[in-house]
Structure formats: C-alpha cells, structure tokens
C-alpha cells in the first residue's frame, strides 16, 4: 500500500505537527523550547507536576492529554522515536522549578526508558525531587518486560487528578503505581501503518488475516490468525485480559477501547457491546469506560483493549474534572 498522506518535508514533520497542535489548542497548551508541550496556564506553585515523554506519530498521543487534571508537560520525540535525554532533563528541571516535585510517567519502550533513565540520573545528581513510574501492561509479552500501550492515559488521569487536588509526590506516585499495576492491554491489527518518514509499511498482513499482540508502532505481534467477527475478536481479547489480570466476579473494571487509526468508531462500538455483554455474563461490573482514539499508530486498522481493576478511590480520581485537548471530564 503506497503512502498517501498530507505532509510536507518529512524532516520537518514533527516540528510542524507540534506547531499545528499548539495553534489548534491555544487555550490548553503551548510549546516550550522545541519539543515540550506544556500547559498554557501552569498549575499553581507548590503542586506536584506530571510529566511524560514519548515519540510522535501517535496523535492525539501523549501531548493530547496536557491540561488541567492530567499532564503538566509532555516531551515529544520525532515520529516513533523517543525524545532526546537532554530534552527530558530540561523539561523535568522546568517542571521542578514550578512545583513540589515531579512524577515522570514512562511507557516501557527501550528508547523511552533509556532517555528517561539518563534524565533521571542527571536530575538526581542535581538533587531534584522526581519519581518515575513505568507503564507496562501489554499482555502479549511475558511479565517483567511488557510494553506500555494505551494504559498510560488512565495513569495520567488518576495521578493527574491526585496532583491537581494537591496530593504529595509520594501519594501521586502511589496512585500511579496502583493504576499501572491494575491494568492490562492487548492490541489487534487487520492492516498496518506506513511510517510517514520512510513512506514504507512496517509489514503487511494477508487479505484475510488479523494479528493479535501488536506493538504501539505497528511492530508485528505474535498471534496471527484469520480475520474474526467483532464479537469473536472481543471475546478472545477480553478472555486473555481477564485471565491475566485475574478478575473475579463482582469486581469493578474500567474498559478503554483505543482505535489504532483507520478502524472506525462504529466497529469499536460493536466490540464494546460484546465486551459489556461478556462482562455482565461473568458478573464483573463495568463501572467506567472510554472509547475513541487516544494513542494511534498512523493509519493502522485495529485497536487496543485495556481493562483495569478499579477501587473506590481510583474511580473518584477517574471522575475528577479534566480539561485537556483530547480528554475532558466536566
């Protein structure tokens, strides 16, 4: 499939998209330096800052959640590439200057973790008050080294709400860890993306194939199979997630369906319907949900299904007000 995208010079892609993004949401965000997206109106001094980092090309992606009740800053890398460690150090310094410590939320991908580790070593040496949380919830890989997928959005939401309410860094860290530890995600694709810089698809799936266990950048998964119906796909994925998370009857869960790019919301509604039915049949309580495109993979067709065990406090934090470009809670 030849690439057909509305872009200009691929080398300017990230700079232009960050510029366009900040022009589109002046009420929420502004650009600090070349690649940190920060709140247009900073949080009052003395409150914990929430910072994240990651590659571009996943729009709305991480930067789409900068705003009241969620993130304070998002350090954007080039397309599908972690940002430079130096950028991370600078952004963390800025965040710490205004607040009572900083919580750095990192999705477990080699490049992001390397950049974050180098940055953490540097800011630790400077004596800054920073804690790091790793999200690693992709059950397609074995425990101990799992990828971070859409679950980070739930972590931004609950820890961001805690920070907004004036919680301490230790408290925000604890909330983020609890959310991160209680969530599981699985991705599926039926058609892969083309990288906007190279113009090439990462790999191709057969005419009637789908693949479960995809990565966030179109990395191939491990469960290639014949294309299934919405109901069957929902059941296969949900079963694996519930087993891995060991959810039992009467527990309360949050479900996020994250469209990969080309898959329609129509299809996500169908999948969601079956998830809701299946949970009901197992007496598991679907207490909250989010459905849409949060972290995409260019024009890949497919979606991520996230399920998280919630407790009373996590639900309250999920429900707390948020006002970001792509996640709002009134």
């Amino acid at each position: 499939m030849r690439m057909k995208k509305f872009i200009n010079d691929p080398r300017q892609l990230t700079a232009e998209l960050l510029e366009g993004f900040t022009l589109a949401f002046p009420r929420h965000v502004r650009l600090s330096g070349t690649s940190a997206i920060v709140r247009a109106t900073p949080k009052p001094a003395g409150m914990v800052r929430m910072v994240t980092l990651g590659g571009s090309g996943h729009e709305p992606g991480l930067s789409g959640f900068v705003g009241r009740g969620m993130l304070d800053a998002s350090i954007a890398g080039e397309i599908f590439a972690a940002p430079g460690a130096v950028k991370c150090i600078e952004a963390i310094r800025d965040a710490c200057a205004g607040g009572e410590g900083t919580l750095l939320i990192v999705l477990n991908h080699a490049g992001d973790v390397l950049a974050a580790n180098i940055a953490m070593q540097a800011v630790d040496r400077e004596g800054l008050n920073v804690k790091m949380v790793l999200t690693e919830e992709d059950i397609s890989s074995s425990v101990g080294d799992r990828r971070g997928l859409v679950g980070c959005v739930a972590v931004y939401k609950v820890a961001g709400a805690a920070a907004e309410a004036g919680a301490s860094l230790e408290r925000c860290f604890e909330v983020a860890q609890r959310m991160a530890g209680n969530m599981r995600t699985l991705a599926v694709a039926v058609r892969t993306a083309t990288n906007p810089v190279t113009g090439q698809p990462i790999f191709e799936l057969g005419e009637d194939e789908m693949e479960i266990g995809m990565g966030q950048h179109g990395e191939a998964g491990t469960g290639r199979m014949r294309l299934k119906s919405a109901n069957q796909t929902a059941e296969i994925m949900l079963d694996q997630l519930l087993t891995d998370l060991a959810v039992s009857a009467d527990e309360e869960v949050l479900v996020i369906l994250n469209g990969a790019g080309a898959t329609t919301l129509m299809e996500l509604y169908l999948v969601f319907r079956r998830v809701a039915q299946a949970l009901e049949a197992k007496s598991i309580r679907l207490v909250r949900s989010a459905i849409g495109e949060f972290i995409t993979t260019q024009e890949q067709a497919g979606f991520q299904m996230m399920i998280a065990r919630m407790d009373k406090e996590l639900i309250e934090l999920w429900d707390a007000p948020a006002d970001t470009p792509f996640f709002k809670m009134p």
Partner: protein
Amino acid sequence: MSDVICIFDLRRMFTHAAEQIRHESELLSQLDCVGGDGDHGTTIVRAMEMLEYEMNAKSDRPLDVRLRDAGWSVLGVGGGASSALLGTFIAGMGDVELGRECDCKRLAAGFASGLRAVEKQTKAKPGDKTMMDALVPAVQAIEAAAGSGESIARALKLAADAARSGAEATKKMIARYGRAKFLGERTLGSADAGATSIALLFQGFSTAFAKQKEV
C-alpha cells in the same frame, strides 16, 4: 610522524561513518521492520549527522571534550533506543582524557570507556541480538590491537571486522531486547538493525583512517 590522531582524523572518521550509514539507511529501516518499528535508518542517520556536525564545528578543545559534547548533542536530538545508546557511547568516550592528539592505546581506552557507559544503560549482552553484538567485539578488538602495539589504522580495521562478524552473527539470534524482543523466533534469519549500523560505523572509522594513511 608518530601514530596519533587529532581532530582532523576524528572529523574524517565520523564523516566516513555517516557516509556509510546514510548509504545503507533504507536497508537499516527495513531490518528494523522485522521486529521493530521500521525507522532505524532514519533515526541513526539523524544521530550521525549530528555527530558529523559537532566534529566539524570550530573549537580547539581536547578530543575528549569534543566527543563528550557531541555525544550529548545526540542525546539532545533524540531518536529512539539507538540514538540514546550511540549518544551515550560517544559521550562516554570522552570520560577519559584524550588530549588534542592521542595514540592507539589512549584511543582504545576511550572506546572502552564509551562501552562502559553504554553498559550502565542497558543490560543487553552479546547474544541478545542488539547493537551490543557489534559494539562489544569491536571495542575488544581495538583494545587487543592496542595492547599488542598495532597501528591505529590496523586497530580500527580489526574493530571493523569484528563488528561486521558480530552483526552477521545476529542473524542466527533471537531478539531479547528492544522492540524486537516480543517477536521471538520471527526475528531469526535477519540481522539486527542496530548491530548492522554499528558495523557500518566502525567500517567508516576504518576506511577513513586507511585512506588517510595511504596518502
């Protein structure tokens, strides 16, 4: 004339290395498609161009300072796992004193110091199908050559050979680090992208130097 390198040599080394990598950048992205996200060619070229730029900047600081600054510049531009490690490697070379000219032994110490810095950031070892499969034997080859009194040109040639064999060997490995680690057996048969670019890096270092000495 004694066997030392100065900033002009270093400059040529990075120019040649960048040239090699730029030339193969499509192949590098393709290799990254097997288990990764298909962008290694793009990211590593960006990093190499930053190194080239830094080496060409006017300055009379010692080589170690030049390398440290250049490495941190790579850590500034960003570009995924490979740039973070390459930047760390180059910056780490500058953690030992190299002066404005350095001989083969000092140079080998610089490379060894770069490798130590990288080893602090990743647990990947040779055999895990990452750039370490090329980097570790390359640095070891330079150290051995320097130890037995070889010339810089010869040491870099041996390093390039070692890196190439190391990269070649990744074809028979299953990835255990980086994005490709999730794929297991599917990565068998094709070389690791990062290891391949490290092999090209050392090949560039070597040809640059060989050519200079031929003059």
